[in-house]
């Protein structure tokens, strides 16, 4: 029994990372109405920047603070010089541009850091495990759960309690209306795109000490983010949270029952949810 409890808690840790990964994608979709296929690439960049920062002798905490801003700024720039010009095109070209972008970023990563992966050391304070009686859990994973929970609350406040958040939420209902109300929608677009990329990068930084870095982690993450958004329902914060946790827990439990098939079961879970609720668990018809 203890094994399963441990796996559920593990799953919550993984699930919170998945939530971070998916929430940016979901918010970007909600407002800009396109799926960002480069989302996994921003996650990839986050992980590699963290790896590089530590290789330069900076510490993990600094990387955790700076990397999301760096990737966010990069995304902001990309939105301004590139994506802005495809908004007028048919929707498949929005997707194709980001596919091209993801390809460029992935290949750049291989050119700079090589095709083989690497490990990222867990920060010294968080090495080892915590013990409560016979319950043992890695410190770092506990930190990830705590940190992402705090971050999720902050993000929720940003979306629900600030002016920018109102603009984002109103914009996902009707962009024209928001722009009629005198808000510079394009500025909101850039900010939201940057914010989405920054959360993906944050997920990358946090994931790096757990799973290491390798150039193809981006596309894997993209697939998982899609599953979560499909399971939870598109464009919603709570959907990403519920979907992320569900998928994280499914993956963790399956990794004790059938290790080779754990990742397969993520997608099977998605198919099952789709059968029962075609618009996702929290999706609006």
């Amino acid at each position, binding site marked *: 029994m203890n094994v399963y409890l441990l796996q559920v808690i593990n799953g919550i840790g993984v699930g919170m990372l998945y939530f971070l990964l998916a929430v940016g994608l979901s918010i970007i*979709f909600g407002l800009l*109405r*396109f*799926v960002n296929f480069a989302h996994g690439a921003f996650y990839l960049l986050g992980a590699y920047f963290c790896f590089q920062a530590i290789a330069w002798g900076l510490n993990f905490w600094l990387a955790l603070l700076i990397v999301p801003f760096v990737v966010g700024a990069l995304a902001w720039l990309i939105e301004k010089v*590139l994506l802005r*010009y*495809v908004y007028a*095109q*048919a*929707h*498949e*070209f929005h*997707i*194709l*541009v980001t*596919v*091209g*972008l*993801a*390809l*460029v970023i*992935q*290949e*750049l990563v*291989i*050119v700079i850091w090589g095709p083989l992966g690497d490990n990222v050391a867990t920060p010294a304070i968080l090495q080892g495990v915590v013990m409560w009686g016979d319950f043992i859990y890695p410190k770092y994973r506990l930190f990830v759960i705590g940190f992402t929970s705090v971050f999720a609350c902050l993000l929720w406040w940003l979306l629900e309690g600030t002016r920018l958040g109102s603009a984002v939420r109103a914009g996902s209902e009707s962009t024209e209306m928001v722009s009629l109300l005198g808000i510079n929608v394009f500025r909101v677009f850039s900010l939201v795109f940057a914010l989405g990329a920054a959360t993906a990068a944050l997920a990358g930084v946090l994931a790096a000490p757990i799973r290491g870095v390798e150039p193809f982690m981006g*596309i*894997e993450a*993209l*697939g998982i983010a*899609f*599953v979560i*958004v*499909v399971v939870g329902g*598109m464009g919603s914060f709570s959907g990403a949270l519920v979907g992320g946790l569900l998928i994280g827990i499914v993956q963790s439990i399956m990794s004790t029952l*059938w290790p*080779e*098939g754990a*990742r*397969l079961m*993520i*997608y*099977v879970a*998605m*198919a099952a949810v*789709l*059968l029962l609720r*075609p618009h996702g668990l929290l999706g609006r018809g």
Partner: protein
Amino acid sequence: MPRLTTHLQLILALAVTLVLPLVMQSGSLATEVLIYALAVLGCNLLLGYTGLLSFGQGIFFGMGSYTVGILLTRSGLPLPVALVAAVVVGALAALLVGWFAIRQRGTYFVMLTLAFSQLFYFLAYSLPDLTGGDNGLLDVPRPAIGVGGHELLSLASPWQFYALVAASFFLVFWLLLRITNSVFGRTLLAIRDNEARAAAVGYNVRLFKLAVFALSGAVTALAGAFLAIMTGIAPLSSIEYHTSEMILVMTVIGGTGNLFASVLGAAFYVLFSDWLSSLWPRWLMLLGFLLIAVSLFMQKGLWGLGERIWLAVRRKGTPGHAPKSTENGS
């Protein structure tokens, strides 16, 4: 420019199959062009004719590879039977994926096709007894085609195999031309242009989409089967996301206005990548830039570019006779 007629497309396709052996040194590279042209045709049917952007074409490609791989290594069935089986399996896989994905539209549909391509990848990865897992299926034989022990066509040399692939390619191309020009094909265009209208007119949109999905899966699986037979392996990479992406990129680069554009896209990609990959292992980056450029500046792909050049040349030849309206004719 006059609309590219069915006959002209057919002649162009025939010309490609005949010219490739004349201009190319490597039989297997020429075969690869036609194999990917098949896969791209399948993708074009969805994207160009029905407006469905599918990131799941690798599923059907891989299923085709695995089906012939398993049948030829384990059962010793004749090659044509294995090919037909691959086509059937591809169509069935497409029906299954389509049944889930087609319930959604637009972006949701796109995401679902990618998620399903990951599902099938991990499925193949998790069943090493059947698929060879990470290693793939090795030593897929290439038996000669014969009737009752009487050999009709040995496939031992690359050009002999090319002949088989070229004949199949031409047959499929002709069939798809027939299909896209039929009432069925016209209905697909109606769905692409305005789904709500097509539904209002009384067409069962979902059924049509499912049918074209199955057709696309069948053609793509045939391509995958040919590649497995040519290379002698059915690797895990054939069912990977990268394969889906590659097929889609070829489709977009070629253009989606007509079927022959797909042949152009596949030929460009295969030959370009063969040349570049020997120069620079990270040539995929250039492809990324190319994809961005195509999305920004030439949404009609190589075919559209050729069309524009042709128009410009003709306009110069006959001044004051500039046909403006043909620019957006599809």
